[in-house]
């Protein structure tokens, strides 16, 4: 094919104009400003867990599974039973995530307690830091979420989470995790697990709400987060957490 220099310049020029038009298109079409009642900037979500109130009934696990259609054998929240003797490693069991509660303990004369676990909604989340495509993120109101349509399923985040709170959904092949019931808390409801906890062992809290009982709770109780040495900025505070819990 014969192309004259004039042709080349004309085609090149046209392409340039198209390119700049395309680039500006991206700038013009931004998202519409939010006009509804829920303002993300006014919230900073977390949870408090009172170990001494947990009875290991597994209501939270069932509620989470129903609310979020968690596939069988996978858990966004689960309950562990710790049985700690003085001189040995603690024994931990969580039969099927405690979705049907626990069988009565066979151990006697040991310190034992239940520990409900879930995503710690870290402010400096390791899982978010490793995502190569921006599919997982901390929302402006402090919830770690996964964009299902953007996730590649590479599982970097599954490995990065120090708390084991992520899994690859067997059907969608994308990563799934606790959303802190984002669809509920943004409508003024509490999470499914907190709604169904019969003893109030777990409680959704909003750190930015000055009237939230969390401020009183943190002032009057000895609390701890899981794996504080990892500096994840976890926002799930445990009251009376034993040193053996990992």
């Amino acid at each position: 094919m014969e192309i004259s220099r004039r042709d080349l310049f004309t085609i090149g020029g046209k392409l340039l104009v198209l390119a700049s038009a395309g680039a500006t298109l991206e700038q013009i079409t931004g998202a519409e400003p939010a006009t509804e009642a829920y303002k993300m900037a006014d919230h900073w979500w977390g949870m408090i867990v009172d170990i001494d109130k947990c009875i290991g009934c597994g209501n939270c696990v069932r509620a989470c599974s129903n609310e979020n259609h968690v596939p069988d054998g996978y858990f966004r929240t689960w309950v562990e039973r710790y049985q700690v003797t003085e001189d040995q490693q603690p024994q931990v069991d969580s039969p099927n995530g405690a979705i049907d509660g626990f069988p009565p303990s066979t151990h006697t004369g040991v310190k034992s307690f239940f520990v409900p676990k879930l995503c710690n909604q870290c402010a400096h989340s390791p899982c978010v830091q490793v995502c190569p495509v921006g599919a997982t993120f901390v929302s402006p109101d402090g919830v770690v979420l996964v964009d299902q349509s953007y996730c590649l399923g590479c599982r970097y985040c599954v490995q990065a989470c120090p708390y084991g709170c992520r899994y690859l959904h067997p059907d969608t092949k994308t990563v799934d995790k606790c959303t802190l019931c984002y669809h509920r808390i943004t409508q003024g409801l509490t999470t499914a697990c907190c709604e169904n906890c019969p003893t109030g062992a777990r409680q959704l809290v909003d750190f930015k709400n000055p009237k939230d009982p969390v401020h009183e709770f943190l002032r009057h109780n000895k609390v701890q987060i899981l794996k504080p040495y990892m500096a994840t900025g976890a926002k799930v505070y445990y009251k009376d957490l034993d040193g053996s819990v990992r």
Partner: protein
Amino acid sequence: MLHTAYRPEKEMGLRRIFTDSGHLVRPAVVLIAALGIFLIIRALVIPKAFGQYGHYRPAALMEIRQRPIVYAGQDQCVMCHDDEAKTRAAGKHAHVACEACHGPLASHANDPAAHVPKLPDVANLCRRCHEKDAAKPPGFPQVVTAEHSGGMTCNSCHQPHNPHL
């Protein structure tokens, strides 16, 4: 020597840059065109407002918020079932939510006639909370069901909404 034989005159060299510059301009145009195509594809592929709040697609927030609710929540139940709510408020189960025992019932709250809830399976339901286990907090009421009831279901003696006898 070959080199000296082909070396052009000084003024001849300047002229050659302009006359034979086609081999520079053509790749330059191709490069610019490629850059243009790259920018167009980039603008089309990157979602709207990507990066508005951070390195992610802000529309994902709304998509997650629009997921269906399965547990209606306490306030919805009490709006109709205020008799049961009053009975419960007087007893030890005052802080146990309706759906903690009755299961997820947002479908019933949205359309009470279409979805009629089933009665809970009492034999397993009560045991999950009240079966004796050393890991449970000592103050929490627990029984060894095999010794406690002699095979009778819990609700043959205890009224679940206010269980005290």
